[in-house]
C-alpha cells in the first residue's frame, strides 16, 4: 500500500466520516483539545517546576501524582487529534508544520520515557525543600520546552494548510 491508499483508507474510515458528517463535531473536538492542553500543561508546570527547583515545597511522591493528570490531558488530545487527522488526513500529512508538531510530540514522549525509566526512582524519596540533581532538572526543563513548542506549532498549522 502506498501513502495515497493509506490516507484514503483513513479518510474513508468511520472516524473520518463521523467528524466530517456531524456539523458540530470538529469544533467540539477543538474545544476538548484546548481543555486537554490546559490539563496536560497545568499538571506539567506543577511537576516540572518542582523538579527544576522553582517550586521547593511538597514531597516528590505527592507532586508526581499529578503526572496522572498529564496522562489524562494527553489522552484527551490524542483522541481529539486523531479525530482531526482522520477527517482530512491528506491535508495534515502534507503540512510541514504538522509533521514538525508530531516530531516534537514524539520527542516529548521519549523524554517522558527516559524520566519514567531512569529519573523517577532517583527522586521519589525527596521530601519538601529538596531539589533533584541536574540531570533530572534538565529532563524537566526539556519537557516544558517541548510541550510549549507543540502548542505553538499547533497554533501555526493553519498558515500552511488545515488545522
Amino acid at each position, binding site marked *: 500500500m502506498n501513502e495515497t491508499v493509506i490516507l484514503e483508507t483513513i479518510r474513508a474510515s468511520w472516524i473520518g466520516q463521523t467528524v466530517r458528517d456531524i456539523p458540530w463535531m470538529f469544533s467540539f473536538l477543538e474545544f476538548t483539545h484546548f481543555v486537554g492542553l490546559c490539563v496536560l500543561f497545568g499538571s506539567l*508546570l506543577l511537576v516540572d517546576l518542582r523538579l527544576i527547583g522553582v517550586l521547593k*515545597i511538597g514531597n516528590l511522591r505527592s507532586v508526581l501524582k499529578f503526572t496522572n493528570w498529564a496522562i489524562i490531558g494527553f489522552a484527551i488530545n490524542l483522541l481529539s487529534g486523531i479525530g482531526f487527522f482522520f477527517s482530512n488526513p491528506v491535508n495534515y500529512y502534507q503540512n510541514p508544520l504538522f509533521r514538525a508538531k508530531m516530531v516534537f510530540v514524539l520527542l516529548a514522549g521519549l523524554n517522558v520515557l527516559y524520566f519514567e525509566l531512569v529519573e523517577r526512582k532517583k527522586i521519589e524519596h525527596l521530601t519538601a525543600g529538596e531539589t533533584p540533581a541536574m540531570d533530572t532538572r534538565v529532563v524537566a526543563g526539556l519537557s516544558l520546552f517541548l510541550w510549549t513548542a507543540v502548542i505553538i506549532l499547533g497554533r501555526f498549522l493553519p498558515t500552511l494548510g488545515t488545522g
Partner: protein
Amino acid sequence: MEFLQWLANSPVGVWVSSSETYGYYITLSVHAVGMGIVAGVILMLCARLLGFARDLSLNIFDKLFTIAKYGFFFNALSGAALFAANGVNLMKNVPFLLKLTFIVLGGVGLLLTSRSVERERAMLSDGEAASVKIKVLALVTGLLWIAAILSGRIIAYTISY
C-alpha cells in the same frame, strides 16, 4: 465605534491583521500558551481541593500562582492585541462578551476559593478533606474557566472580519 476603528488602524491592530508578519498567529500562540498556564494551574488547584493528592501541601500553589499571574498578564496583552485588530466585530460578538464575563466570574470564584482556603489552611495542609464549601467553590471555579475556553473557541466560528 470611532475608537475601535482607530484601534484597528493603530500599529498593533495593523500588525495583528497583516498576513505578511504572521502577527495574528504569533499573538494566538502567546494566547494559547498563556491559557495553558492560567487555566492549567487553576484546574490543578481545583483537582487538589476536590480531593486529588490530598497529602500535597497547598503552599506549593502560592508560587505557582505567582507564575500564573504572569501568564494572565501575557494573555491580557495578547488578548488586547487581538481585540485591537478586530474590536468593531468583537464588541458585537456574543461569545466574546460571554468569554469576558466567564473570565471575570472565574476570577471572582478563584478569589473566593483562595479566601476560604486561607481560613482552613492549617487543617488542609495536614491532608484533611476540604470543606464542602471549598469543594463547591473549586468545582464552580474550574467550570467557569472551562466555559471561558469554550466561548473563546466559539468566537472563531462566529466572528466576522
